[in-house]
């Protein structure tokens, strides 16, 4: 498998190699890797990459996947235009 060709995060174009490079450097946790690569913070809000990264951390450190932290879920559930939000109240009344 060519690690450069395996995309883990489609929003930020993060490959498997980007992940394993950081694990090799000594970064251990989801939060550290997320902050360096922006993985999990893109337009899809981590719906694909969170579990993929958890699996890589689990395999690398040989710990059960349920012991790998899950990052905080943040609003919004889906992207909404600023204009739509700013006009929402006006449209209601």
């Amino acid at each position: 498998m060519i690690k450069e060709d395996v995309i883990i995060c489609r929003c930020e174009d993060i490959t498997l190699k980007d992940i394993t490079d950081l694990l090799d450097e000594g970064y251990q946790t989801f939060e550290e890797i997320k902050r360096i690569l922006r993985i999990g913070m893109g337009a899809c809000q981590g719906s694909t990459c969170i579990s993929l990264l958890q699996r890589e951390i689990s395999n690398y450190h040989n710990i059960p996947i349920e012991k790998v932290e899950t990052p905080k879920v943040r609003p919004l559930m889906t992207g909404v235009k600023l204009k739509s939000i700013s006009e929402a109240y006006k449209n209601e009344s």
Partner: protein
Amino acid sequence: MKANIVIIGSGISGVSIAYNLAKKGVKDIVVVDKSYISSGSTGRCGAGVRQQWGTLMNCKLAKSSIDFFEKAQKILKYHRDIEFKQEGYLIVAEDDEEFNQFKKNVKLQNSVGIPSIQISKDEAKKIVPHLNLDVIHSATYCKTDGHLNPFLMTDAYYVAAKKLGVKFYFYEEVKEIIVSNKKIQKVITDKHEFYTHKVVNAAGGFAKEVGDLVGIDIPVYSENHEILVTEPIEKIQGPMVISFKKNIYCQQVPHGAFIMGRSDKSVEKNHDISSTWKFLDEMSKTAVELLPLIGELRVIRQWGGSYNVSPDRQPIISDTKELAGYYMAVGFSGHGFMFAPMTGLLLSEMILNEPTSIDITDLHIDRFESENKTNYEQSVV
């Protein structure tokens, strides 16, 4: 375990202090954080670095810090791009009152070498074409202000400090600081005991609590400041745009996303960092009014973080007369990230009894004892 010094907090201030001390040859430096690196205010900040301040001390700290950021990548020999860009801060004035205040600010900034200028709204439009001129009076602009990635800048200090031998202990909370004979003896965490005579409080949002551990009353409090990020698009905005009266800061980061925030005057003083619908509503209205084009962008995420606020909204970089060996870098009032190079340098000089690079009497905790302090930083969102 023995340590020469224990630094509490692995935000940008803590890692900068650790790096500066290690660079000066101090051994056995320990940094303790109850969570992961940059998990507090640093990792939640707006990623702006500016020099356009209203007090002399903030101007000096900011100017020297920008001088460092310009060379940080090389000095720290960091292998990733810290995403530093200098495309300025455009601070818009809404009325004559702000115009006059900014006139004084620019004069002060220029006096310490900060290249800020006051400009008309037509000139502002040349710098930010999508600015709504109907709602502004004029602006000030400083081209050497800009953007820096908070996670990566903190990581750069962290990597450099580790190479110099600094030991980091994450997910470990300081529970007790043992003092006897007016001297610090031991720092006890939930995992270790560190025998040390020196402690640095760089605990950000929890600075007051870390003061309370040794009975020192630090006059700071924390409050939630919210922020959001949009989808990334091609570059359309160079500088950070700020309005104090409209209550907004908004920039496009090199990655392409827009980051924006505003404060809420009714927010309570506590450690809450949650996201609210109220913020999203007010933020979108303000952003669309000042920068109408931005309204087309989708909001991706919102979050919150603590401002650790001091009475004059300037940092407290200080030792204490009550307890020798106890130092603090706290109360940055939302701007600890952009002052970090000077925070680390000044505190390392103070700890090693060297003359400080700039006179920081006005940043000492004792300044709040005198009644006639008028030096209040107004240029804060």
